[in-house]
């Protein structure tokens, strides 16, 4: 009996440790998950500012978007008077609200700002908040020199002068229905130089465009630490108008009855006339038989 008791005594600490760790794991699984908020400041065409956020959490060692999360946005402080707006994240865990006119005025009054995204506690997450500092910045496209684009990014310094921003990565392309088509086949991404500029050659010949050949050029900066997200568009007449082929008024199988294809009319009526001609002939034969019988 001594031997089993010894084994039990020796293994007791191990069993205790295993039990504790199991309890700890159980507690972990019931604990709330960590919420990661990334505030995003966006300017479109140097005119409209947006406050945005990307919400993520770690599930099974992978970052997953958090949908349906209510987020409040504040500019330069978390008081109610600094509230930009409220939004709920979409399926990608993203939400965005435009600056109101009053907030726009406050935004224009100073050069450096802090955007705060804040989420209240939910069943899954504790309350969470994140800040992002940024300066007033702008992006321009210049196409004065033939088919060359010069994109310039500047930001306002403390003296309210626009100064170039160096080392900002951006995309330059043509706005198509669902994406940004690079202006040339080889270089899709550009980085600004000391003048805050990138130069791109437009090498897309005969790109399908509107009736006047207009294309929408776009330069896009995505979530840069210094300037946030910027985008600008410019219309240029560098495309080629391709008139759509319109079969609407032609004679087709899918047209209206007045537009039945001639070959079909010919074939169908030939067959109908031939067969019904035979039927009429046979009916006439019946009358001939009758006539003979009645004679």
């Amino acid at each position, binding site marked *: 009996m001594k031997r089993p008791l010894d084994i039990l005594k020796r293994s007791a600490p191990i069993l205790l440790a295993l039990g504790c760790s199991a309890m700890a794991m159980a507690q972990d699984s019931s604990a709330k998950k960590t919420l990661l908020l990334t505030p995003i400041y966006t300017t479109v065409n140097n005119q409209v500012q947006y406050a945005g956020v990307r919400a993520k959490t770690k599930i099974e060692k992978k970052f997953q978007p958090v949908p349906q999360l209510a987020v409040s946005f504040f500019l330069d402080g978390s008081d109610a008077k600094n509230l930009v707006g409220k939004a709920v994240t979409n399926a990608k865990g993203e939400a965005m609200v435009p600056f109101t006119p009053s907030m726009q005025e406050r935004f224009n009054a100073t050069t450096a700002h802090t955007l705060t995204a804040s989420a209240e506690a939910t069943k899954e997450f504790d309350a969470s908040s994140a800040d992002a500092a940024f300066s007033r910045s702008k992006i321009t496209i210049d196409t004065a020199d033939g088919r060359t684009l010069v994109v310039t990014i500047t930001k306002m310094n403390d003296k309210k002068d626009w100064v170039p921003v160096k080392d900002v990565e951006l995309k330059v392309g043509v706005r198509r229905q669902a994406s940004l088509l690079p202006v040339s086949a080889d270089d899709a991404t550009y980085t600004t130089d000391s003048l805050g500029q990138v130069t791109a050659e437009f090498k897309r010949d005969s790109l399908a465009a509107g009736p006047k050949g207009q294309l929408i050029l776009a330069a896009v900066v995505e979530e840069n630490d210094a300037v946030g997200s910027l985008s600008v568009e410019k219309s240029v007449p560098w495309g080629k108008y391709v008139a759509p082929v319109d079969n609407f008024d032609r004679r087709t199988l899918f047209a209206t009855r007045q537009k039945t294809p001639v070959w079909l009319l010919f074939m*169908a009526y030939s067959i109908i006339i031939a067969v019904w001609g035979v039927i009429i002939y046979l009916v006439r034969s019946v009358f001939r038989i009758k006539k003979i019988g009645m004679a």
Partner: protein
Amino acid sequence: MIWTGILLVLAAFGAFAYFLQLKDGLVVTHMRDYVSWGIYISNFVFFVAISLVGSLITAVFRLVDVHWSTPLTRIAEIIAVSAIVFASLIIVVDMGRPDRFYNLFIYGRLQSPIMWDVIVIGTYFFISLLLLYFPLLPDIKFLLTAKDSATKGWNKFYRAIGGFWKDTPEQHRIANRGIAILCITIIPVAFSIHTVTSWLFATTYRPGWDSTNFGAYFISGAFLVGSGAVLVAMYVFRDAYKLQRYITEEHFDKMSKIVVLLALLYLYFNINEYLVPAFKMKKPEEAHLLELFTGEFAPLFWFAIFTGMMIPIFILLFKKGRKPLPAFIAGVMVVVGAWFKRYLIVTPTLLHPFLPMHDVPKSYLHYFPSWQEWAIAIGSLAGALLVITFFARIFPIIPIQETLTEQHEKAA
């Protein structure tokens, strides 16, 4: 009388169900957004198929100088006429607003296979009617000779439709020429009627219908069900009217062999239609095929294959199986299997579109006909049988003149 009474009751009940459908609309059926062609269209395809037998037995056999089938020609023709009449009617039944039927002619587009079907069905009806009428003329003379066996009214009717037949050589010449022309004309029209019916499906991009083979597949199936129906009718008329002298065991033997040939042909087309897509098992067609092979429709599918083709082939392959009774049973199996086969061509496909609809009630994903649909479908079948029954009562079901001529020629 019991037979006629049952048919009359069934037809009247179908008419009552149709009255309810007219009153309340197509909502009384179980056809919804998914299955918009249900039992009515299955029935339509069945009727069109069975009507093809007229062209096979009468026209094809006559043109290739096959004489043994002469006593069966009228049976085949009356089946064809009654079936095509009810095919036309059942299409109207399937319409939600039959009062707007005339719009098809005012606004119909010649590009539409539906328009082709309307034209070809009308044409086939008239040709079949003429093919029934021309050989009937000499027989009406026999009916008028035996005046006492019919009522005054019927005699008046016989005189009106054939009293002018005097058996003159010129009349025979015109009638024979008419029959010969009809036999040639009816074959392409018959092929067209069922090919166009198959195109109603094949020109629509759906699983199970997207086939270039549908015309031939439908025609082979049509010849099979028509021949099966002739086997059944032969047995029934032979027994009811004591026609053993005219419809002999030899007729059953030969007709059974034709059914075997046609069943094998249809089986071949079925293998083509199902094995080839099943081998590829394209994702958008998978649900439809699996439903047929192993799913909800599997019992019906295998029933149709075995009852409509395999078992009849097995029965009729043997000489004993080609005797009247077993041949009759095989014929019934062919016809019943063929009806369900048409249902399987129409309905499962509609339940599995390439682009499923969103937010439809769950009940739309299944289809089982309502009692009104069953009543109308059964009523239409009873109606077709009634036409055949009435025809057999007022006209000789065996072409007397032709059969006698055949027998005399044979004896000589």
